[in-house]
């Protein structure tokens, strides 16, 4: 399973990439692979304020429906509206073209509740066992 260095991860298999005070959010390679072919995503609305680990989106694949949780508190400032028509971008490119939303971070201290790439890798290893 692909893991990108430099990102932070949640145990629900979301990632964030922090640039300045903005976090780009997506789901991990493990998550997209487990879901299978993604057919629908309900994106959050720009402007919405989210708490850390609050539900921000829901995602459907051919076989399942799942919630996506915000890895960090803040305001949604942009969503990847390409996903409305092409949710399969998440399968094809979960760390780049398949990003879900950008969040203006409210509290940088919450980073402490997230995992590094190394820690997330350990979690995945324990799941495979």
């Amino acid at each position: 399973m692909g893991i990108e260095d430099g990102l932070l991860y949640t145990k629900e298999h979301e990632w964030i990439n922090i640039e300045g005070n903005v976090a780009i959010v997506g789901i991990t390679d493990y998550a997209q692979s487990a879901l299978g072919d993604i057919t629908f995503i309900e994106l959050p609305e720009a402007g919405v304020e989210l708490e850390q680990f609050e539900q921000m989106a829901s995602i459907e694949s051919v076989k399942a429906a799942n919630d996506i949780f915000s890895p960090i508190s803040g305001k949604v400032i942009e969503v990847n509206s390409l996903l409305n028509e092409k949710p399969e971008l998440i399968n094809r490119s979960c760390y780049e073209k398949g990003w879900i939303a950008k969040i203006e971070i409210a509290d940088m201290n919450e980073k402490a509740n997230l995992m590094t790439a190394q820690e997330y890798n350990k979690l995945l290893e324990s799941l495979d066992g």
Partner: protein
Amino acid sequence: MINTPNPLQETPLYSEHVKLKARMVPFAGWSMPVQYEGILAEYEQTRRAVAVFDTTHMGEFIIEGNARESGLDRIVTQRIADMPLKTCRYGAMLNEQGGISDDLIVYRISMDKWMVVVNAADIEKKAEYFERKLTKQSRFKDVSRETGKLDVQGPLSREVLADLVPAIHKLDYFTFDDFDLLGYKVIISRTGYTGELGYEIYFPWDKLTVLWQELLKNKKIKPAGLGARDVLRLEMGYSLYGQDLSLTISPLEAGFHLFLDFEKDFIGKEALLKQKQSGVKRKMIFFASDSRQSPRHHFKIFSDDKEIGMVTSGTFSPSLKKGIGMGLVDRTVDLKAKKLYVGENKNRIMVYLTQRPFYKNGSLRN
């Protein structure tokens, strides 16, 4: 010894599936491939080219005897006495209360010899039931454990099979014959569950790997799993036993009328006649949504705010790019007057009534 109750059964292709990195899931007591490359890729492969499905989990019974005297005619709901030789006919077996115990296909092998193909769950119980209900003027054999089965489905299926079985061209829709395939005498029928031109091949269980590998040598053919099979069948509006058909759903509710022959006697007929008199409560509807959201099995169906039924099957339709489904609703509700929704109590999806098949460009009868 580790005590594992009811371990999953495996088809002879289990290790082939694992080699191909299939995702294996439990299905009706069997470990089966739900997907290899991905459900949508396998769907496209079947709609546009040709795919092979391992369907060895299905059960096959051989019955020898006259249609009526053997008792077979009474076990199944469809008319069989007038079936031409080497044809197939779809129907069901009911319990005395008129509930559907299984849907099945009857093959007429000769004047007094039949093959019945049933679903994978509880094959032994169904075999016992057949033995109980068949008369002494019959011979019965459950050949499920010696019969492997592959479905080759897709617009190119005839072309790729013709390399191995040149005579395949002669098969019309819902007919079958004996063919020589890789040195074995086997039954191939022109049937399937996808809406595409396709064939079902009944092959010796212990030799099935040879056929599987031979088929996959042809780069035009790719393996497809149960995930794609479910999307393909639902786009055609075909029922799945356990969801759209079951013991608690009357065939009169399930839209099964075409496959019931009320001119003959069959188990469950009396119950159905009573239901006809008193009227059934529900009916099957087919619907599509305007969004890419999928209706799901067990979602509720609402007419405005009133709960009127349950989704029996739902999926994302790759061909329509929107959600489709079927479900049972209260027959007395006027569906045209109100808006229809499916979903949990929150998060409802608006849907509109439509007809099956959802997908209309299948190569089934080409």
